[in-house]
């Protein structure tokens, strides 16, 4: 019997380290001979911390929302008496709804292996794909990737084989493989989970890519905000080197390959290839004109191939199972599976991997369980600051590169943030423009100034100072920013505004013309009131009000003094549900 605990960033934040301590204490106290294995994220973030009991026959019981107290119960009931504690179980042999709709390729080992033990990885066939690739010709490797139809998972969806082939064809004694792990989209955490949960699959993917293009050095450009991921990748590199999967004469061949980590320093624009290269070279991460493409002129002027984490994690699977097996999944133009980070107002938030072509509805409702508190779905944001908001009427859209593009959003790296009726779409557009405006590197005037002007207009609208003509002006600037920007950041920065204008124009008009925020989110446009007929004068709201602007005698209806109200919403939240005396409009 074995105990497995999910120690990804999410798990740790939810208290998994305390759970591990409690488990170890219980084992010591009972004098049991049990292994405790740590693992990465299985994706059920909504149930963290997670604890698996794996019986000798392989039967697995997964407990969710585990606390130190629950650990005690599990030990007393399940381990001692052999009776699983039903009420805390979230999955058993029969997978739950969240897991059953998934097909795991990139995430095949996440939440199963200990990412800090290379043997766990090799036991599941790890590094066999590299061995196989080295026995093939470089062209044959690229051909296999071509058959698989794998496209870049970082956002743009460019065919991976094409990039590899371009870098292979460019002559040069030195070439580089770069893994883009600068996952900057707010609302996306796929790459973090892969790096934390299965770092070797990325290293193996890089080594295979290195073999295919003729590179001997790989660099992982990772976000400094992901300390745990960096820690685990470094351990993985050291272990792989020790075992000879990295280094000189890999598998007895002439192929040499080494990998090092370079920490990013926080700049969204560095997701763009040429900006990333500038950053690797110690410069400000500013993009340059293409061509020449990195495949011709990249890191230090050498042919460089840049792939995203998830793309690389797919590669070993494709080499082992064959390109056909990968291409058998998905749609005609979007093959294979895609990992999504489900977040926002969703019941079962977490990491999911599904075959391309599943509808948004299936992902959100069948896997994600629908909207929190069963509120009304309003939109799903895809593609982060470069993407857009997809409305309810388009929920049947299949999730593939082209269909999502047709809605005005983009597939992006896989962030799916679900929004409900209480989310203001103008505020969402403002939120993203605030982000892109801060992250614009400043090189192109249209992007630098255009995003700033758009943000100002959106801020005005949210503050109730919108004017007739604002919508047209937004559209005009959006077009100019798209046309006049060199890189993807500027070219896509207006997307959140354009999609919300396209699908939620009425909300903009309500803000501008009626000075109302239909979702009751924009502080300047809302008022909190206490219904004197419903208020029993319990005084809870007055106690909770941070500025003390609620007055009233005991057991008498209270009143909010509007001139002092900061609209924090505490009163609405505190008012006992049996009274429901506070309203907002």
């Amino acid at each position, binding site marked *: 019997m074995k105990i497995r605990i999910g120690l990804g960033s999410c798990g740790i934040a939810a208290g998994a380290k305390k759970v591990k301590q409690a488990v170890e204490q219980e084992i010591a106290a009972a004098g049991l001979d049990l292994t405790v294995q740590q693992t990465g994220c299985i994706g059920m*973030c909504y149930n963290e911390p997670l604890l698996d009991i794996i019986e000798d026959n392989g039967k697995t019981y997964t407990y969710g929302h585990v606390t130190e107290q629950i650990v005690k119960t599990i030990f007393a009931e399940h381990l001692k008496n052999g009776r699983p504690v039903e009420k805390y179980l979230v999955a058993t042999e029969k997978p739950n709804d969240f897991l059953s709709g998934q097909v795991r390729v990139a995430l095949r080992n996440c939440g199963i292996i200990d990412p800090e033990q290379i043997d766990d990885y090799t036991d599941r066939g790890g590094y066999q794909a590299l061995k196989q690739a080295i026995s093939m010709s470089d062209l044959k490797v690229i051909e296999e990737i071509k058959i698989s139809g794998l496209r870049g998972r970082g956002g743009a969806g460019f065919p991976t084989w094409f990039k590899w082939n371009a870098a292979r064809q460019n002559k040069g004694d030195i070439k580089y493989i770069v893994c883009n792990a600068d996952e900057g989209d707010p*609302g996306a955490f796929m790459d973090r989970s892969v790096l934390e949960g299965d770092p070797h699959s990325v290293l193996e993917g890089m080594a295979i890519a290195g073999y295919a293009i003729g590179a001997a050095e790989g660099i992982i450009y990772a976000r400094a905000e992901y300390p745990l991921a960096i820690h685990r990748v470094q351990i993985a590199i050291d272990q792989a080197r020790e075992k000879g999967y990295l280094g000189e004469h890999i598998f007895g061949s002439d192929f040499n390959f080494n990998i090092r980590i370079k920490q990013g*320093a926080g*700049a969204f624009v560095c997701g763009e290839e040429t900006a990333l290269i500038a950053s690797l070279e*110690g410069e400000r991460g500013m993009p340059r004109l293409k061509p020449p493409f990195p495949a011709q002129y990249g890191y230090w002027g050498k042919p460089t191939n840049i792939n995203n984490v998830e793309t690389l994690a797919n590669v070993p699977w494709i080499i082992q199972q064959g390109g056909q097996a990968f291409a058998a999944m998905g749609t005609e133009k979007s093959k294979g599976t895609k990992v999504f980070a489900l*977040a926002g107002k969703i019941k079962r*938030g977490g990491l999911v991997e599904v075959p391309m072509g599943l509808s948004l509805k299936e992902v959100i409702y069948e896997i994600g369980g629908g909207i929190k508190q069963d509120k009304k779905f309003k939109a799903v944001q895809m593609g982060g600051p470069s993407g857009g908001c997809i409305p309810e009427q388009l929920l049947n859209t299949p999730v593939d590169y082209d269909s999502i593009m047709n809605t005005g959003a983009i597939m992006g790296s896989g962030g799916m943030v679900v929004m409900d009726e209480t989310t203001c779409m103008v505020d969402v557009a403002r939120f993203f423009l605030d982000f892109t405006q801060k992250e614009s590197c400043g090189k192109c005037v249209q992007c630098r100034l255009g995003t700033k002007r758009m943000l100002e207009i959106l801020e005005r609208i949210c503050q109730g100072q919108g004017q007739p003509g604002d919508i047209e002006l937004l559209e005009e600037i959006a077009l100019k920013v798209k046309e006049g920007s060199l890189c993807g950041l500027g070219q896509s920065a207006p997307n959140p505004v354009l999609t919300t204008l396209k699908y939620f124009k009425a909300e903009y008009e309500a803000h501008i013309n009626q000075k109302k925020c239909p979702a009751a989110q924009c502080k300047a446009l809302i008022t909190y009131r206490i219904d004197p007929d419903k208020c029993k004068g319990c005084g809870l709201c007055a106690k909770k009000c*941070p500025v003390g602007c609620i007055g009233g005698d005991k057991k008498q209806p209270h009143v909010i003094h509007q001139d002092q109200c900061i609209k924090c919403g505490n009163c609405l939240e505190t008012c006992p549900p049996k009274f429901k005396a506070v309203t907002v409009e």
Partner: protein
Amino acid sequence: MGCCSEEKIKVEKEKQEKADLSLLGEVLAEYKGQAGSLVTVLQKAQDLYGYLPTAVLRHIAKELEVKAAKVYGVATFYTQFRLKPVGKYVILLCQGTACHVNGSERIETAICQELKIKPGETTPDGLITLTNVACLGCCSLAPVMMINGQAYGPLTPDRALDIIKDLYKQEKELKEGGE
């Protein structure tokens, strides 16, 4: 010329000159002559000093033989780098999309009111710095904050304040224990 701000700059400068530059010796020895190492050197310097004092930036420029303007340009380009000292505890308050739609703004308001500082500022006692960040990647626990590497979520204004109160309590105990 000769205005009070100049005086201020001078005082500030003197204060910063006190940064012990010898701490950097090892880092510079390792990376000197290595092309493209500026970002890494700045990261290591920030680990050593907690922030990047002007004197340190100048010293790095001199030692790596790059223009001071370039060092300053790189240091101000990336959000990771700080040119001002930070508190013992740095709160990274996530303002990612998932946190935003789940009410991160209310958390921010509550923390700001409690600590009487704005995002980017440090409490007068030098204990806590509040910084807004774009995304910590713990979206399913939204809203989230991270304090010195430890993530907390899902937060409510009350829970965030409790965590901060715990920090103060912990500090008090440390102080008393030390005496």
